[in-house]
């Protein structure tokens, strides 16, 4: 039973990690927390749903569509909203994105009703059994997709020219602009990439999770905690935070009670930041 709980926790933890990676990327580059992150996820899940229901596209096959669509959404949100609050106080930034989240969530409810929807069978339906431990197909695929995407993001940031430009902007936007990097475009890119991460996560989640207007809230709260747990701005930290939360949540759900599993998630956060005030991998 421990093995089963660990496996389930790890699998969902990888998805948390991917959502948190998108959030931490945006924060790392421009120190803004995207409180509409969960709603981006929700929109991506609806996109998968409608592509599946309307055109018969499998969410896994349509995954690049989600990534591109959410990338575009992130860039649009940056230019339309975020650019106006770049130099505003932190609280104004918080409520600009929070207002966007409220708007998107309720627009979704208005357009698509508060119904819970499921996609039904997809390519990855079914399950596998290995040494007495069950692996649900959709969760396995979601975990694999999330790990690959996070690894891709990490590679992009640390091994490519454009990634270095992003990190340079994060480090010192003035110095970066003196080196010929346009900070404005880097910020837009960060929003695009951050949103594309939840785009992928949304497509992966849609194969086994209910699609409804409030679905983002569940994951966004966990992503915030994962990001802070790992240390704001660190992709590696967010990944570790997401996986840790997935495992803790799953173990607490099995061994204590499902009703109190989030209590342990928040408790872990408190313990970690009280011992390391800047998160697991943050510079102390």
């Amino acid at each position: 039973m421990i093995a089963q709980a660990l496996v389930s926790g790890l699998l969902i933890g990888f998805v948390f990690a991917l959502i948190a990676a998108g959030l931490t990327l945006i924060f790392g580059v421009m120190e803004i927390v995207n409180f509409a992150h969960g709603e981006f996820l929700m929109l991506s899940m609806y996109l998968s749903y409608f592509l599946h229901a309307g055109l018969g596209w499998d969410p896994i096959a349509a995954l690049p569509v989600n990534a591109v669509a959410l990338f575009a959404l992130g860039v649009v949100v940056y230019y339309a909203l975020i650019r106006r609050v770049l130099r505003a106080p932190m609280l104004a930034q918080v409520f600009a994105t929070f207002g966007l989240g409220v708007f998107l969530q309720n627009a979704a409810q208005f357009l698509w009703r508060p119904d819970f929807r499921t996609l039904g069978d997809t390519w990855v339906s079914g399950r596998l059994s290995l040494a007495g431990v069950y692996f649900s197909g959709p969760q396995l695929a979601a975990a694999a997709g999330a790990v690959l995407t996070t690894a891709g993001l990490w590679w992009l940031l640390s091994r490519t020219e454009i990634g270095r430009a992003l990190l340079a902007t994060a480090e010192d936007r003035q110095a970066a602009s003196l080196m010929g990097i346009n900070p404005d475009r880097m910020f837009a890119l960060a929003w695009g990439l951050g949103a594309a991460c939840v785009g992928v996560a949304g497509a992966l989640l849609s194969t086994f999770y209910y699609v409804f207007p409030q679905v983002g809230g569940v994951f966004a709260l966990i992503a915030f905690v994962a990001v802070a747990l790992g240390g704001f701005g660190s992709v590696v930290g967010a990944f570790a935070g997401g996986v840790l939360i997935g495992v803790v949540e799953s173990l607490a759900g099995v061994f204590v009670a499902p009703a109190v599993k989030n209590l342990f998630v928040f408790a872990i956060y408190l313990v970690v930041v009280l011992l390391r005030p800047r998160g697991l991998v943050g510079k102390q």
Partner: protein
Amino acid sequence: MKVAIAAAAVLAVLLFPLVFRGPYPQHLMILVLLNALLGTAWNILGGFAGQISLGQATFFGAGAYTSTLLFQHAGVSPWLGLLAGAAVAVLLALAIGYPCFRLSGHYFAIATIAIGEIAGIAVTNWEFAGGAVGLFLPVEGEGLAAFKFGDKLGYYYVIAALLAFSVALAAWLRRGRPGYYWRAIREDQAAARSVGVPATRYKQLAIAISAALTAMAGTFYAQYLLFIDPPSVLPLSLSIQICLVAVLGGAGTLVGPLLGAAVLVPLSAATSVALGGSGRSLDLVVYGLLIMLIAAFEPAGLVGIARRLRRRGSP
């Protein structure tokens, strides 16, 4: 000029229920005053001292549950319950502040979210406190001594008095030593420490006062609605709304939370009356849009708009 506006506002609040006698306008105004009180309490911690709390519901719930449980199990007067709730909230606040004030910025804000969520989950699973079912307050007994009134008027003046007390306290603190210390901590804590500001002690003072006032509002809420449960007094959405009232009004100013409550509460009521009938949350679509627009175009909050209007009026 300022005194005249303040006097006019106080007079308007006092006369409002005598002019508008219907239960709905009075109820709406009670909610405005309640939110103004919560925003003012948040503002002492978040606006003056710069420690962003997204867990104020913890203190609100502490007030609501303490007075209600004391009344139900020991027959303690809700007025004493109000003080007891404030005391419990202060103890909670100090216990939270002691470790958490080592955290800065977003780490502190998320820690307050975590504590608020833990409180919500804990009470939901606590049978003695009614668990997920919640607690009903008995309806017998009326009058000021019982903290229970047959009509809205009594509640109206109680919350108005609590608000007046809170604003006066906030104004007094802001003008005195704590106000200067808080501002120094908010602007640059390391610099404040280096010139001898006991930062931790003054942050503890801010969270204790903020918690006590918020808990009083919680007791008022329980007495007013006669029913409490975790989704109504301990949700994250309440913590966010409290912060929203103060920030959209203008964080760090005295009138900001009052202005924020006076605009936000009727606004959300109006949009839900005008657009909520469809049951499809069009009201919240508009609400979200407005929050976004105010934050994007007037980062200093409604106070910023008011200032600009006044400058235009008297050049």
